[in-house]
């Protein structure tokens, strides 16, 4: 079978991303580079939701649960181990393991789509109130104080195996950017594998996939766990970028903006939600410096505009436009060719 769209587009985007990675520290302010690591963490969260929702058809409203767990697990593990080397895989594993347990009950219990959205969101909000209640010296995991609503310190990244060699912010930015690009290429590859295509097929029609002898529960659990692992990785870079983890990672507004990124960027694409994260973060950051407009109000308006006017999201809509122009051009060329071939019959 011909691949409808091969990996060439992915590699072009990965190359552009690498170009941005190399140029950014040269042209952007130091402070901007520090914030960028944080935003990259959020972009990986958006990517994970783009995969799970856009390709797996699983509307996980509480994707931030895995993001936040990754962030907390990293902070706690890095504090205890005294370094980031082992803490990053631990963060990813904690998020994926939590998704395995939660997903098992959801998918093997055949919970419907709407309840899945509600359950995952509820889980995130439960984690929000639980972590907020952890102020006090008794809430300690090893050496790490959880710190209630003030949160806990997230140690910086270090060179693998050498906890003393702490990375500079621009190096942290490089690492985060490489992780984002690698995660993006991985997802692009994944949705083209047999596993990925079955997940897409399940999104399109669960009954048919089951009748073709695919155990849809297993596939959904698989993509759910992969998404959670990615979200956990996003949580790592977010917490490193902020140097702290607070319960806000589990908040309702954080869960909602993740959904907004995917809607604005476009479901069914991977790069769309990533770009939307950067764009909307830039928008809210520049709004943050003034006090006329409320940031959440603006985000709400953006969401409404997109749902009503660009329901497919930016990237799919642009792709449609490009395709339309291409077809018009082909039609024009064909017409010209036909006219040239039969000059005496043409008008």
């Amino acid at each position: 079978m011909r691949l409808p769209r091969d990996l060439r587009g992915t590699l072009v985007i990965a190359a552009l991303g690498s170009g941005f990675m190399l140029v950014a520290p040269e042209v952007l302010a130091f402070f901007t580079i520090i914030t960028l690591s944080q935003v990259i963490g959020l972009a990986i969260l958006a990517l994970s939701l783009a995969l799970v929702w856009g390709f797996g058809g699983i509307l996980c409203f509480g994707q931030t649960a895995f993001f936040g767990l990754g962030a907390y697990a990293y902070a706690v593990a890095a504090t205890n181990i005294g370094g980031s080397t082992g803490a990053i895989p631990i963060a990813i594993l904690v998020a994926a393991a939590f998704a395995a347990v939660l997903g098992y009950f959801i998918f093997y219990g055949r919970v419907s789509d709407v309840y899945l959205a509600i359950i995952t969101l509820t889980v995130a909000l439960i984690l929000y109130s639980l972590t907020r209640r952890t102020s006090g010296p008794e809430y300690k995991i090893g050496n790490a104080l959880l710190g209630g609503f003030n949160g806990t310190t997230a140690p910086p990244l270090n060179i693998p195996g050498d906890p003393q060699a702490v990375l500079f912010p621009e190096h942290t930015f490089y690492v985060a950017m490489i992780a984002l690009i690698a995660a993006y290429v991985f997802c692009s590859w994944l949705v083209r594998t047999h596993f990925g295509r079955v997940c897409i097929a399940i999104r399109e029609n669960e009954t048919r996939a089951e009748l073709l002898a695919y155990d849809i529960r297993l596939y959904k659990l698989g993509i759910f766990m992969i998404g959670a692992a990615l979200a956990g990785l996003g949580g790592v870079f977010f917490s490193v970028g902020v140097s702290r983890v607070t319960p806000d990672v589990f908040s309702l507004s954080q869960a909602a903006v993740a959904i907004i990124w995917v809607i604005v960027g476009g479901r069914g694409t991977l790069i769309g939600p990533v770009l939307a994260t950067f764009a909307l973060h830039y928008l809210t950051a520049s709004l943050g410096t003034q006090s006329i407009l409320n940031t959440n109000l603006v985000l709400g308006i953006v969401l409404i505009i997109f749902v009503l006017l660009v329901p497919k999201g930016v990237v799919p809509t642009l792709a449609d436009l490009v395709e339309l122009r291409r077809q018009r051009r082909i039609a024009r060329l064909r017409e010209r060719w036909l006219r040239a071939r039969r000059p005496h019959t043409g008008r």
Partner: protein
Amino acid sequence: MKQAETVLEARNLSMHFGGVRAVDGVDFTLSENELRCLIGPNGAGKSTFFKCLTGQLRPTAGEVLIRDVNVTGREPHEIGALGVGIKTQVPNVFEGLTTEENIWISARRWHRPARARTLTAETVERLRLGDVRSDPVGQLAHGQRQWVELGMVVAAEPWLVLLDEPAAGMTHEETVRTAELIQEINSTATLIVVEHDMQFIRMISRKVTLFHEGGILMEDTMEAISADARARQIYLGHRA
């Protein structure tokens, strides 16, 4: 001569929805390589019977045996994994995927990539879907969508095939082609076909089972059923 082996059996199978007895105490057997037609008026319970056989519904009572194995209450993918294929009455296709992708998903379930690719290409040709191989199935005409679904069923190379109204909404030529295909499939598989189109049934079948109000009213050749007064009254009379 050796008695043909029974490959599918329903014993006292019932499916009740509240007070509605959609399927009610059905005993049914199917022999290897048979091509059986299932007819009956709207609401007789034919589709519900299929859903019980394929695990889409868990029967209220009774048993389903496939090659003497009790498969009652198994998941649809487990029944599918036994080599049972079904085309449902309401088309179940992957709307957003292309014709080729739809069929490939089915072929790839059973074969390595290279074989899955050739099997997909063969199936596309066999169902005459070459012109629409790269079109999203959601954009195809009704008859072609039915064929895509049929293509998915045959690409899995099942040995037991259930087809629920495979020719519904098709043009005459499409119907004839579908009848040919069913004969072809029957050379390697046992089939049950639900249809309302009497001409179509005459084209393909020897033995016909008549469903009525959740039960089997009679089982005979189409000629005998057409000649039966009761059958004519409950079914054929409506349709003439």
